[in-house]
């Protein structure tokens, strides 16, 4: 195995649940034979291989075994049956600030927590300033953690783990960190970890967070792998399962889609500079949109409408293209078109793409997808806001000194 690989083979894990919260010797001796212990199989014959550099999401309902699987991969617990193998250093962010000692200062806790995560003191010393700067705690690092707000504690916990330089990073619901700007910063850091070839296993209830980070996801249902494949499909199945639980009538209500249906958008994806399908970009990166359109014989080549909106739904940019103008005469059923942007002019935030197919007048709607794609842009440098400035600074003739 190479560093960064994870192999989970036929793993099952049983937990013995006792009727009472904590067992005592008294129970053991006094009520012998009456202690009601029930066996619960948290995982059942789970197999999963993760390659180096892959980001895999684990999604599923409460009690589906996500966290158990993560703890097994971390080596905190052992499988009852089967085998878990990992290669390389594992950084686990199962809980931010786990093991912080409240009476100690932030500085002391950085060293203690780093040591617990397996870092050498010298390594921590080397990265100390970066950690503190990332956590934005320069002013408070020598105060006891007791005096920190919960946001500060979590920021510090995240910063320590983020600078671990692990081969594998395990994340469990850790993005409730601080304000939204800090959350994006965390995401950016983790995204950069992935870009540098790090392996990630990410557990979340929040399907959109998984979509942002992972191309592949595993949907766990009552301890079994219900689906393992592209995140979008895993999330769809997960949402469907959730909807089945709540109220069958709600199913599909989230899909804002309409149109007459003569021509349809078969698929749409965003493509990064390496040519693969993804949903996260760094500001200024090459960016491309690929849309597959299906229009049977007899339907004239439609016009493709494109709208970029922010989280609040405000229109940021709109654009339309006539497929006939691109040279598609229609009639042969299906085609793919591609829209390329050399440097993504967005800075920071979450964005939504609406796609529509209309006739050439734009009046008749064949197919409209309200939220066809969601993607996230992380600042690559010091960009702030929504839009990336494109431009160059230069010194003009300096007349004052003359």
């Amino acid at each position, binding site marked *: 195995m190479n560093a960064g690989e994870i192999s989970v083979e036929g793993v099952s894990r049983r*937990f013995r649940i006792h009727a009472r919260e*904590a*067992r*005592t*010797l*008294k*129970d*053991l001796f006094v009520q012998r034979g009456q202690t009601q212990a029930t066996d619960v199989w948290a995982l059942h014959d789970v197999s999963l291989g993760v390659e180096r550099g892959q980001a895999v999401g684990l999604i599923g309902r409460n009690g589906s075994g996500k966290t158990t699987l993560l*703890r097994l991969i*971390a*080596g*905190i*617990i*052992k499988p009852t049956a089967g085998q878990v193998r990992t290669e390389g250093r*594992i950084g*686990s962010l*199962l*809980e931010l600030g*786990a*093991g912080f*000692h409240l*009476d*100690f200062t932030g500085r*002391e806790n950085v*060293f*203690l927590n780093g*040591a*617990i*995560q*397996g870092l*050498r*003191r010298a390594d921590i010393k080397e990265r100390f300033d970066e950690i503190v700067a990332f956590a934005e705690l320069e002013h408070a690092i020598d105060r006891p953690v007791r005096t920190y707000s919960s946001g500060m504690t979590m920021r510090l916990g995240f910063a320590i783990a983020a600078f671990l330089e692990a081969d594998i990073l395990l994340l469990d619901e850790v993005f409730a960190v601080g304000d939204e700007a800090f959350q994006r910063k965390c995401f950016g850091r983790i995204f950069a970890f992935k870009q540098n070839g790090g392996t990630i296993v990410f557990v979340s209830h929040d399907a959109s967070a998984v979509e942002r980070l992972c191309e592949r996801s595993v949907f766990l249902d009552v301890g079994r792998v219900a689906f393992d494949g592209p995140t979008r499909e895993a999330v769809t199945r997960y949402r469907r399962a959730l909807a089945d639980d709540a109220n069958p009538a709600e199913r599909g209500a989230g899909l804002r889609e309409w149109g007459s249906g003569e021509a349809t958008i078969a698929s749409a994806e965003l493509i990064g500079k390496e040519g693969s399908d993804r949903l996260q970009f760094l500001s200024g990166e090459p960016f491309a949109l690929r849309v597959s359109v299906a229009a049977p014989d007899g339907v004239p080549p439609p016009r493709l409408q494109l709208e970029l909106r922010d989280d609040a739904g405000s229109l940021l940019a709109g654009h339309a293209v006539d497929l006939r103008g691109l040279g598609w005469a229609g009639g042969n059923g299906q085609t793919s078109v591609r829209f390329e942007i050399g440097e993504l002019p967005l800075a920071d935030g979450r964005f939504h793409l609406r796609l529509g197919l209309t006739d050439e007048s734009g009046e008749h709607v064949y197919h409209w997808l309200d939220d066809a794609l969601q993607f996230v842009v992380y600042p690559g440098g010091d960009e702030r806001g929504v839009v990336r400035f494109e431009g160059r600074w230069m010194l003009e003739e300096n007349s004052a000194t003359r």
Partner: protein
Amino acid sequence: MSVYVDVIRYRELFGSLFRRDIRAKYRGSFLGLGWSLLHPLVLMLVYLFVFSVLWRVAEVGSDDYWLFLLCGLPAWVFFATASQASSRSLLENANLIRKVRFPRQLVPLSIVGTNLVSFAVMLGVVVVLSLWQVPEARSTVWLAFPLGALFACIVAGFALMVAALNALYRDVEHLLQALLLPWFFLTPILYSLEQLPGVDDYPAAEFALHWVNFLTPPIEAMRAVLFYGDAPGAADTLYTVVAAVIALAVGAIVFSRSDDRIATEV
């Protein structure tokens, strides 16, 4: 025996935990490490006052009773405080144990380590007092250190076992606490086994006090070299060595067998 090998492999982490525990123990206290001396000192003064001044029961042939007492107390204090503190240690670090992978035996062992520091300080003081008060002990006094090291092994093994059991059965710490007081009186610290008036009538009781209570032989051996200036008894020494090995083995076996359950049940 990887339970102990990991202490060396993860010595940096052990060092960090040890520093944390030491600092947590003495943090902000005026006397700092002096507390570890104050505790046995106060104990000793109280016992001295009650048994030597008021009651006059436990005269040990001379008026050095205070030194006699002081030769037995450090070992007892070490055993009692280390095993009690480590019994709770895993639960106190539950948050860490559930969320991070690291050799969990370092948690109770680090507690034993911090108490070992107090023990070493106390033993050092007793050695100095012995050199000053007992001229005939000058050639044997250094033996207190290897004996102390063996005793520390007994404590470490016992503490590991208690810590693991308490994570699985929450009343172990209370049971231990309840046992410690009678255990103290059943260990020859306040008195010497040879000088108990009742032992002639009840040889079985004397045998049990000496050989069933695994604290007696090491304490007797330490007192022989510190107080009487004798070589430690061969039987006591052998018993101490064997007890150290067994305690370490039992501690390691109990801990590694319950290791996985510790992660889920703390």
